[in-house]
């Protein structure tokens, strides 16, 4: 393999580029990204960056020295508009076509928008990019306490609510489901985690959808959120956190199987072995993770298989993610099997500090911790070891 193009200049793309180099690839490496920035870290955008305790310079995923060592050509501010997977030709919005021996797809995910025609009124935000975070921060700082409505009670919504509350705003979270976080944590643990909102003076409204946003003035500024049950929530700013979808629009005519992301085998390889996919855009063996650690771990596996020309390695990592809300660190690892019951192993939900194992048929397959990093780490390691296929 003499040349590789990486599409998407963020976490997964950067880690894939690093993995290629560290695994001995010394050919031509091109990294294409439609953002103008060098790769930066997204998790702080809803946490310390939003509250102002972390600055932009602390978000960089690589320093100048590492960037130089990577010895890559960076095409930033450049969009890939199409791919012919068979010939590995990538079309760019600059009119150029890049044809290389290998292609890494790392275009991540895009926030879902509220349904409805037209663009949302000003003061309505989604949060994925640095620009998104800056725009939201501008709306949250400078004035006095504002009324913020967060639509969607998932992890990003909860983190934004927590950061807004820390900045002194009046926050309401609206969740369409009867309880947020059930798909990730199951009913019981989701219920415990959702109590954090009330602990910190944030109102959580569940079981009600949003029908429309009201706005007024020459700048079409958001004024209120109308709920399905007719209630009207006055709002100075609205954050829409209703999930993301994989960024695969540009791959529609690529010839690759698209099904909740780019469909790959357990080694991150598409049916065309010289095209691999990593991170939030990749549906690896039936699962599309939207987590930091998966993106970094998949990159090493994908690089190995791309260089080998076939899937010689599979991604074995135990799924893991964390979330920081209201000063509480939530950590989760493993696979929550249907019908598994969580059991508190240590600590107490009332103190918002506990370790819980999800058990089924006497076996623990997942672990959740609130503010219990040390025992969490132990159990996570045990689970990872147990999940390894036995080798002799």
């Amino acid at each position, binding site marked *: 393999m003499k040349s590789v193009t990486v599409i998407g200049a963020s976490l997964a793309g950067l880690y894939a580029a*690093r993995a290629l180099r560290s695994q001995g690839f010394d050919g031509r490496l091109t990294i294409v990204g439609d953002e103008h920035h060098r790769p930066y870290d997204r998790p*702080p955008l809803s946490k*310390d960056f939003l509250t102002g305790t972390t600055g932009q310079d602390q978000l960089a*995923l690589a*320093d100048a020295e*590492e960037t130089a060592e990577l010895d890559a050509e960076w095409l930033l501010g450049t969009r890939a508009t199409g791919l012919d997977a068979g010939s590995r030709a990538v079309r760019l919005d600059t009119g150029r076509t890049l044809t290389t021996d290998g292609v890494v797809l790392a275009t991540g995910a895009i926030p879902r928008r509220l349904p409805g025609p037209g663009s949302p009124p000003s003061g309505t935000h989604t949060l994925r990019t640095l620009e998104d975070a800056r725009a939201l921060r501008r709306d949250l700082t400078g004035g006095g306490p504002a009324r913020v409505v967060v639509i969607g009670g998932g992890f990003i919504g909860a983190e934004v609510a927590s950061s807004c509350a820390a900045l002194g705003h009046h926050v309401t979270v609206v969740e369409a489901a009867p309880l947020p976080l059930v798909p990730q944590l199951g009913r019981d643990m989701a219920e415990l985690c959702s109590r954090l909102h009330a602990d910190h003076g944030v109102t959580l409204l569940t079981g009600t959808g949003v029908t429309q946003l009201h706005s007024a003035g020459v700048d079409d500024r958001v004024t209120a959120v109308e709920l399905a049950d007719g209630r009207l929530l006055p709002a100075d700013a609205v954050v829409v956190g209703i999930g993301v979808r994989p960024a695969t629009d540009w791959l529609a005519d690529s010839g690759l199987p698209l099904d909740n992301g780019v469909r790959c085998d357990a080694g991150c390889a598409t049916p065309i072995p010289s095209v691999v996919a990593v991170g939030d855009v990749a549906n690896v063996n039936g699962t599309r993770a939207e987590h*930091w*650690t998966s993106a*970094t771990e998949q990159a090493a596996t994908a690089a190995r298989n791309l260089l080998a020309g076939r899937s010689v390695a599979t991604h074995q990592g135990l799924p893991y993610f*964390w979330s920081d809300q209201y000063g509480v660190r939530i950590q989760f690892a493993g696979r929550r099997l249907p019908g598994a019951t969580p059991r508190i192993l240590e600590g107490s939900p009332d103190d918002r500090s506990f370790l819980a194992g999800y058990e089924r048929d006497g076996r623990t397959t997942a672990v959740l911790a609130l503010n219990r*990093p*040390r025992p*969490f*780490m*132990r159990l996570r*390691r045990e689970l990872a070891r147990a999940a390894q296929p036995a080798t002799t």
Partner: protein
Amino acid sequence: MIPVCHLDDLPVGESIRIDTAPPIAVFNADGELYAIDDTCTHQDASLADGWVEGCLVECPLHAASFDLRTGAPTCLPARRAVRTHPVTVENGMVYVHHAAEEGTAA
């Protein structure tokens, strides 16, 4: 010189955080005692909560690993070293000698 705890209270494989400013983590790795700055140089996590194996500690948040002897990171996402601090044991008590305080900045 900061008293940490009795040696008996820091068995092999254990670690303890002391609330200095900034906090320091003290480890008993296979019988050797080490002290490093407790806060990971990547983001906000306490290395005293990490996983010790040999003379390495793995951060509990994103798995960066640090060499307890030198403080140097051995893998990403951490890129900067943590400071190390000398540790002594006197009459069964563990003491940390704060590097900056005693002019032996690492």
